[in-house]
């Protein structure tokens, strides 16, 4: 047991150690082989990958918060319960929006529900999310958003000012996004049976003739672009809840992504393979979904992923990876290699997308997996989330 606490040692950083570290020119680039039998390890891993590629089964006794988190539990609920029950071909494609043919026209259609807590947060509110979230799902199908329906579930006792503020936010956001609100519905439930306000929006758009997008269209060699700095929406919500006693100037990134999609379609045309907005589960979840849908691998260069310092700092303190944090105005695009450069330039010219970046590429092996080349020079898997510790971010 100690007799004195040496506080001067606590205060002493040893950042200056670097010269001590940098005394040799040694390099270690040898590939890894394990003395414990790499052959057997590879075999065990391939069995696991085969099992993972199978459609999920819904075996839980009850719904837990994990089913709403967008990770593996959500996936097994969708694949094990919803798809077998509704099983249309369109639904099975599991795109952000469905393409429905109507008398020669191709419409994109989608729906989304919003339960974010708190209702207002830096950079946005539940009303803005309800418009942009659905508009963006339509846009991810390569469709120009046209119209929205709006369903409100209100809790008894909700302040009229709060309701009015959200209605105004919805109207303003819809105007900016160029969509019309064409139908709606309202229900009120007893106090305690909802949390202020829940919103459901359904969106319709018309598919752009330049768009040839599909989650299964990715090919080895394709490049992966993100439309800006990541992780701001989820971080803003976490801090707005006040559970961490952290303070930082981080605002939600909520915005319409149609201008970005329009620019990408213009620059890359059929070279644009697929789009996803990186909402719940973040960029990591989107990449995993696409890798699985196309049966390809992805390698992300961690050092090239744009993250604002404030977001990085909050993530560092909270022990989370910004790649898994939700965005509400950022997309991931897979682009044919020959069109990647012009697509990135076009994206960066769109207001709000100045920080867009090329973060990695599609590979053939190992199928269905997303791998990261860490900034430190190592490698690792970037898997789907198992459960989101922070529910109700949208």
């Amino acid at each position, binding site marked *: 047991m100690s007799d004195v606490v*040496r506080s001067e*040692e606590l205060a002493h950083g040893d950042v200056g150690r670097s010269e001590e570290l940098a*005394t040799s020119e040694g390099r*270690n680039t040898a*590939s890894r082989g394990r003395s*414990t039998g790499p052959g057997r390890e590879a075999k065990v891993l391939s069995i696991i990958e085969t099992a993972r590629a199978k459609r999920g089964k819904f075996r839980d006794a009850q719904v837990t918060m994990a089913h709403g988190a967008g990770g593996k539990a959500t996936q097994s609920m969708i694949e094990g319960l919803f798809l077998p029950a509704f099983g249309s071909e369109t639904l099975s494609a599991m795109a952000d929006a469905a393409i429905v043919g109507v008398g020669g026209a191709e419409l994109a259609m989608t729906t989304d529900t919003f339960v974010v807590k708190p209702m207002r947060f830096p950079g946005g509110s539940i009303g803005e999310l309800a418009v942009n979230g659905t508009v963006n799902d339509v846009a991810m199908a390569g469709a120009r958003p046209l119209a929205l329906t709006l369903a409100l579930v209100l809790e008894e006792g909700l302040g009229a000012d709060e309701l009015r503020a959200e209605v105004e936010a919805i109207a303003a956001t819809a105007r900016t996004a160029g969509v019309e609100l064409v139908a709606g519905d309202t229900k009120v439930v007893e106090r305690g049976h909802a949390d202020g306000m829940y919103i459901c929006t359904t969106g319709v758009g018309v598919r752009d003739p330049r768009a040839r997008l599909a989650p299964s269209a990715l090919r080895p060699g394709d490049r992966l672009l993100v439309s800006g700095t990541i992780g701001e929406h989820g971080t803003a919500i976490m801090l707005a809840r006040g559970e961490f006693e952290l303070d930082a100037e981080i605002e939600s990134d909520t915005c319409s992504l149609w201008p970005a999609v329009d620019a990408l379609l213009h620059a890359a045309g059929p070279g644009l393979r697929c789009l996803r907005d990186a909402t719940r589960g973040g960029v990591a979840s989107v990449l995993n979904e696409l890798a699985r849908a196309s049966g390809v691998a992805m390698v992300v260069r961690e050092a090239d992923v744009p993250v604002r310092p404030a977001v990085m700092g909050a993530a560092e303190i909270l022990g989370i990876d910004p790649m898994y944090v939700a965005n509400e105005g950022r997309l991931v695009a897979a682009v044919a290699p020959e069109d990647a450069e012009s697509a990135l330039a076009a994206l960066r010219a769109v207001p709000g997308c100045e920080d867009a970046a090329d973060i990695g590429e599609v590979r053939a092996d190992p199928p269905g997996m997303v791998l990261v080349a860490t900034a430190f*020079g190592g490698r690792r898997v970037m898997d789907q989330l198992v459960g989101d510790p922070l529910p109700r971010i949208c």
Partner: protein
Amino acid sequence: MKYVDEYRDAELGQVLAGEIAAAVPAGEHLKLMEVCGGHTHSIYKYGVDDLLPDAVELVHGPGCPVCVIPMGRVDDGIAIAHEPGVIFTCFGDMMRVPGSNGTLLEAKAQGADVRMVYSPLDALRIAKANPERDVVFFAIGFETTAPSTALTLLRARAERVPNFFVMCNHVTILPPLRALLESPDLRLDGFIGPGHVCTVVGARPFEFIPAEYGKPLVVSGFEPLDLLQSVHMIVRQLADGRREVENQYARVVPYEGNLRALEVMAEVFELRAHFEWRGLGFISRSALKLSEAFAELDAERRYSVPGVRVADPKACQCGEVLKGVIKPWECKVFGSACTPERPIGTCMVSPEGACAAYYNYGRFSREQLAV
């Protein structure tokens, strides 16, 4: 990010990796155990393993607080959570640890009021905000987190909060290390010492490892360069024929520990005669309980809990993984019956657990990915 990026410099990492490779005596294969789950997590997160030469192998040790909690204790916690009027609080990882009949997350879905907190003080705050209900904090962790539980208990008593209780599952790091070193099937050449535990207990208590067992130990920080430098220091000791405790993490760890924290712990806790460790069995004097002076705040005294010892599932080899005898992928149920979404063993639950870290981050054939 200042004060962080300096410890993640890829070029320095390559340089250091080269020095490690050069320092390993020819023909040797060294097995080093990182004791702490936080190290396991860092090693995988940054891909530190990738930079090490083939002759140095890292073995993941027992220092993950969630991973060592036996099923019976989870059952006891769930039983308390189901008591009428109870608000049950715990850290997020703990909610997914399986007991013999489900997890706390499932208990929550069944109606128990289970809430995730980030600190025991959050639980105390909940108690003050809900004076008509009992608030129980499920305390876990090594000496790293025990002082914060102790300080919270002191505050609860000073502020006379009558409805705050702690179910104490705090454990101590030295007894399992000794048990490990006594284990006949163990073959280790050195230890990466648990930096966070050492901020509290200091580095001195680990001196028995070189003295009695002839193994070097280097107390390490958690950044990738910290880990590489610690490996380098261990390899140098082995090459020079030295066996001692060294402190790589001197910017945070005083060699003698944090006296104030140790005092608070001594005031609030006493050693249990024995405690069951997941996969390791009963280890005497290896865990803490509330002392007599704090009996009124002890959830185990307020509620009668089943207190039943539940055998680990037969197929689960967490014990061997925790002892470093097998690699996670060598376990019979790894990745098939036992996955992070449906864990059988605790090593698959916490991101600090060896199996979860390997499954989430390391599960790829290295030959397939040349970056």
